[in-house]
């Protein structure tokens, strides 16, 4: 019965992505408040055959704990031009494949992702603007 009583306390914490400490589960963040804000440099002048570095900066929103980032992902989700689909044929993204990394409390860390416009790119993509969505998988790591 004690286990049953404890569960309602732990489940909400798990559902919003909490992490554990020595004392058990602790409420620190909700999904509406991500652990890191991700911004990237402006990429312009893409043309067939070119590769350009997209430097992503992950700014930790947690000022008390370090966060451990396991995965960073960039997706092209839309373009401004009809006939220019956000696909690998028009814009390929070489994702960050590095090891998980730690961001100290309130600090930032950068990773590089490569954007490649292949020669298969559609003519319709001339002057197109590709909308990119950045995301990361991270968890709180207790500060020492």
């Amino acid at each position, binding site marked *: 019965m004690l286990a049953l009583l404890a569960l309602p306390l732990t489940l909400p914490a798990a*559902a919003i992505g*909490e992490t554990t400490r020595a004392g058990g589960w602790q409420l620190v963040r909700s999904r509406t408040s991500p652990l890191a*804000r*991700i911004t990237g440099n402006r990429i312009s002048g*893409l043309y067939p055959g070119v590769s350009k570095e997209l430097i992503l900066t992950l700014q930790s929103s947690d000022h008390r704990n370090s966060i451990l980032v396991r995965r960073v992902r960039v997706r092209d989700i839309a373009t401004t031009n009809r006939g220019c689909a956000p696909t690998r044929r028009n814009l390929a993204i070489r994702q960050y494949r590095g090891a998980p990394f730690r961001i100290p409390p309130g600090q930032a860390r950068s990773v590089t992702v490569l954007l490649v416009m292949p020669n298969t790119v559609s003519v319709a993509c001339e002057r197109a*603007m590709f909308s990119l969505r950045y995301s990361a998988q991270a968890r709180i790591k207790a500060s020492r």
Partner: protein
Amino acid sequence: MRIFKLKNTKRRVTAITVLVIAGSVIGVAIAAWTTGGSGSGQASAGSATPMTISAGTPSTSLFPTASADVAATISNPNPYKVHVSSISLGAITVDGGHSGCNTGTVTVTSPQTNGGAGWDVPAKVGAVDGSANVDLATAISMSNSANDSCQGATFTVALTATGASSN
């Protein structure tokens, strides 16, 4: 009967407890990595700059009943290599000093594809456009009807190249 029911209830409670605990463990395992960061950005594509074709120096001369080559230089101002798959030859004009030449006696063979291989025009490097010299062998002909005013004339042929970026 009652004892049996009690045992059954205990089993159910135990089973539910195990299921709920298992569920919460799975939830923790997923949730530990699902809270992350997010953001958005944009990347913009440039546009192709038209290539230019300028007249070259033909290696052969044109005279009645014969064919000659058409020479040209294709310049590529784009930062990527362009493969020209075909060149179309259009209107023929004669230089001002030979306006009496009956240009209708001069014809072209169009389009030209270099035997299907086309031509590669290198990318612009720094401030220097890439360029390729093109010689369209026997692309222009003169019939035996050409008049004397055509002697010494220079004919200009309109060229249109079709190409695309290439590796």
